[in-house]
């Protein structure tokens, strides 16, 4: 095996070398029949031409395990059907940015992954050319077979030995998009056979010889700490191996590394170690623990008052200020001000949090679902006082991430437990643990105020009040920044002991609904066309003059115009009530139109038309799945997602009291992709935020009532359709 460093990208290509050569590349069906040796990079080529590509980034359902290898295969010039895909392990020497987050995997992988494939292809061609004694430029490649001017052919497997000894070319040429054969074609999820037959894939499915199971008793409420516990009964229960207390190591780590501060994680915890998951979970219930309360045990009612107080107050941090909004408001013909409210949201990955750890003197073996493996490996090294080289971290396919698996408190728990008991152990959260020990989307309130003078939008002032910080950064430069002369964004947050963090499309998952509802209402009071108002504003934006403006007005206009056409906006028959939105986040431009109809006197979201410009679409089949899912997830959480706290205790800990959208409530999503040759951007998040706005605007059209609070079902009165609006 050989690895070579690439200029710039810091990435490596590894070849596995085999002696025998066959002319045509036809990989065997059974990969296990090939005896690959160890590897540490993206590509393996066997002597018979079989190609295995390693997908570097964690797979949480966003489809990168399929799409990232497609980028390599495209430039490697092999047939996609002949490629085997495997999940890469954490390897910070050979891979960069092994993270699932921010919809960035494809955007960041676009150049380096194609470079990786192209470099490998060029080395294989150079090897064949050298053997033939011809110039490499005379050779062509198709589906893993190299052909020279005389018509001689060599398979990749024939020359892989020689190729691996050659210099790594640094000036390989990437394909023109018009020559793509794999990118832009539908590719099935690479794990589809395993998923549909129930093969072990997920962290919860992982097993190792001698493995035991751990169930962890954590404080039931935020603000509590363990004082003492009685495990007499639990100890005598079937299958219980040991009951220990952990926390000391994590508390010490937090003193050194505040980046991972999380109060609930830093309390002492009681761990039941048992022979099976069920035995561990049952025995945990039998532990009698005493908890000490913080001075303030927080409740949603207090949060509500506090956030409203912030919005009514004057103490803000200003994130962006253009012109003078106060002056604009004082000179206005008309001012509109509205406040929007959202609850906390748990992530509720279908696969509850879990992780495997096996700490020995030789190494620390970690296996499981984690969106940020490198970050966690670094923390574990600090936690256990080990070298990072001691850590072997394998990522499993994840039963959802949605941001929850960025945090990895469960990885720390698994490592601390295995270090204490020196056994391979898997920590498994019950659903109740998972929902109650969350890193929630924070509760937020927005107040938006706008001024109109001579029919023009002259001022726009957005105030945010949030629990903890709301990951500020990009919001101030989102639309309508750049389109309004007097523009200001102010924020204030309350430092809570409830843990909050990134939740699918952080900082926009609620903001988009608030803003898009506001625009809708603004157009109504201005008595202008809702779509035309947006287009007029976008035409005022000079994104080149203002470098902070990340969205492209041109791309947004195209998306909006396409949505108008495809949704039949303004031309729907009576009885179909539409709501319009457009949005930019995670580098992708989106427009959505919701169709609401009245059935049995109630409004029903029937369909969402979604137009997306994400540049080149790597895998349309996967892309559509992401878009459909993002939209329905956005509709579901806007309609039903409700979560709060009472004296630090979560108001729901399972799906009997926490409502997720289900089949009968899911609208049909009709997707239209803008065709262009711009570099691709991600799809895991950007279609979610605007969906709530589209539904709210359509509900307004259907019921005549505007909803200022999520979830929409919280105020059933607002979902009632007045008699006079029901069309028979």
């Amino acid at each position: 095996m050989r690895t070579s460093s690439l200029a710039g990208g810091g990435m490596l290509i590894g070849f596995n070398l085999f002696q025998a050569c066959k002319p045509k590349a036809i990989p065997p069906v059974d990969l296990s029949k090939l005896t690959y040796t160890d590897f540490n990079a993206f590509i393996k080529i066997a002597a018979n031409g079989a190609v295995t590509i390693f997908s570097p980034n964690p797979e949480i359902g966003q489809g990168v395990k399929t799409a990232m290898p497609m980028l390599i295969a495209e430039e490697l010039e092999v047939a996609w059907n002949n490629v085997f895909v495997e999940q890469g392990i954490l390897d910070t020497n050979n891979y960069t940015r092994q993270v699932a987050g921010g919809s960035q995997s494809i955007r960041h992988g676009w150049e380096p992954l194609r470079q990786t494939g192209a470099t490998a292809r060029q080395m294989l061609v150079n090897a064949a050319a050298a053997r033939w004694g011809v110039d490499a430029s005379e050779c062509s490649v198709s589906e893993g077979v190299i052909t020279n001017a005389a018509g001689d052919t060599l398979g990749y497997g024939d020359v892989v030995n020689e190729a691996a000894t050659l210099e790594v070319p640094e000036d390989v040429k990437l394909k023109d998009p018009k020559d793509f054969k794999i990118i832009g074609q539908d590719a099935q999820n690479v794990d589809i056979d395993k998923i549909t037959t129930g093969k072990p894939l997920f962290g919860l499915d992982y097993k190792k010889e001698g493995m035991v199971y751990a169930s962890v008793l954590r404080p039931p409420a935020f603000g509590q700490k363990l004082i003492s516990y009685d495990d007499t009964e639990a100890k005598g229960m079937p299958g219980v191996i040991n009951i220990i207390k952990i926390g000391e190591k994590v508390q010490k780590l937090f003193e050194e590394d505040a980046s991972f501060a999380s109060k609930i994680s830093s309390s002492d915890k009681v761990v039941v170690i048992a022979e099976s998951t069920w035995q561990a979970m049952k025995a945990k219930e039998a532990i009698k623990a005493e908890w000490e309360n913080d001075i303030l045990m927080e409740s949603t009612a207090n949060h509500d008052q506090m956030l409203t107080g912030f919005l009514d107050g004057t103490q803000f941090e200003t994130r962006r200020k253009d012109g003078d909004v106060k002056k604009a408001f004082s000179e206005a013909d008309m001012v509109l001000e509205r406040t929007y409210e959202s609850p906390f949201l748990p992530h509720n990955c279908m696969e509850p949090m879990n992780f495997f750890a096996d700490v020995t003197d030789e190494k620390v073996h970690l296996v499981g679902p984690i969106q940020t493996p490198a970050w966690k490996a670094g923390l574990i090294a600090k936690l256990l006082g080990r070298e990072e080289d001691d850590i072997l971290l394998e990522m499993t396919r994840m039963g959802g991430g949605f941001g929850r698996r960025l945090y990895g408190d469960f990885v720390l728990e698994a490592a601390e437990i295995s270090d204490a008991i020196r056994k391979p152990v898997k920590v498994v959260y019950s659903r109740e643990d998972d929902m109650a020990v969350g890193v929630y989307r924070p509760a937020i309130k927005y107040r938006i105020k706008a001024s109109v003078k001579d029919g023009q939008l002259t001022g726009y002032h957005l105030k945010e009040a949030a629990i903890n910080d709301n990951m500020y950064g990009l919001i101030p430069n989102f639309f309508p920044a750049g389109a309004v002369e007097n523009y200001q964004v102010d924020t204030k947050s309350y430092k809570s002991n409830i843990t909050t963090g990134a939740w699918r499309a952080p900082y926009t998952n609620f903001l988009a609904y608030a803003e898009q509802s506001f625009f809708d209402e603004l157009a109504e009071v201005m008595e202008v066309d809702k779509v035309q108002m947006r287009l007029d504003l976008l035409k005022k934006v000079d994104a080149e003059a203002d470098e902070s403006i990340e969205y492209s007005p041109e791309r947004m206009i195209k998306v909006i115009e396409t949505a108008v056409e495809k949704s039949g906006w303004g031309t729907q028959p009576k009885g179909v009530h539409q709501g319009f939105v457009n949005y930019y986040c995670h580098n992708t431009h989106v427009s959505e139109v919701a169709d609401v109809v009245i059935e049995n006197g109630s409004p029903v979201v029937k369909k969402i038309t979604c137009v997306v410009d994400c540049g080149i679409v790597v895998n349309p089949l996967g892309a559509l799945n992401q878009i459909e899912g993002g939209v329905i997830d956005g509709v579901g959480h806007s309609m039903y997602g409700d979560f709060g706290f009472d004296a630090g205790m979560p108001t729901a800990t399972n799906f009997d009291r926490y409502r997720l959208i289900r089949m009968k409530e899911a609208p049909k999503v009709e997707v239209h992709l803008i065709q262009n040759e711009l570099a691709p951007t991600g799809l895991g998040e950007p279609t979610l935020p605007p969906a709530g706005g589209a539904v709210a605007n359509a509900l307004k059209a259907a019921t005549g009532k505007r909803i200022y609070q999520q979830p929409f079902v919280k105020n059933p009165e607002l979902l009632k359709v007045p008699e006079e609006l029901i069309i028979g």
Partner: protein
Amino acid sequence: MPTYQIKVNGESKSVDVSADTPVLWVLRDHLDLVGTKYGCGIGQCGACTIHVDGTAMRSCSMTLEQLNGKSITTIEGLSEDGTHPVQEAWKEVDVPQCGYCQAGQIMTASAFLEKNSNPSEEDIKNAMHGNICRCASYNRIYKAVEKAAEQMS
């Protein structure tokens, strides 16, 4: 702990577990059949759906005693080689995103279609309403059930 004889995917198995152990954990931890998933433990999400004498049941909410000699089929035993019409439809439509809930979805759909191979839109939606897909692949689940119904009718 009592010993139970159970029939899973056509094979007789003997397991020693306490009487309150849910079938879900017997399958996953004792029989290495991890295709059946844990999602909520209270019969709300459907990730743990198996067939008990052909009827879709929540394995998280039943014990071996409640099985009372009935045969279990799990996702691993739905077909020998993953070619049950529902599995084929799932592949053709490319339903999964994260994939975690899909075994439960497939087990619900296959039991339903055995009893109603000519379902209406409403029938399909009612049948699948009990299974949560957090990635919200509902449009494709619907399409795949419809496709499988065509094959099974």
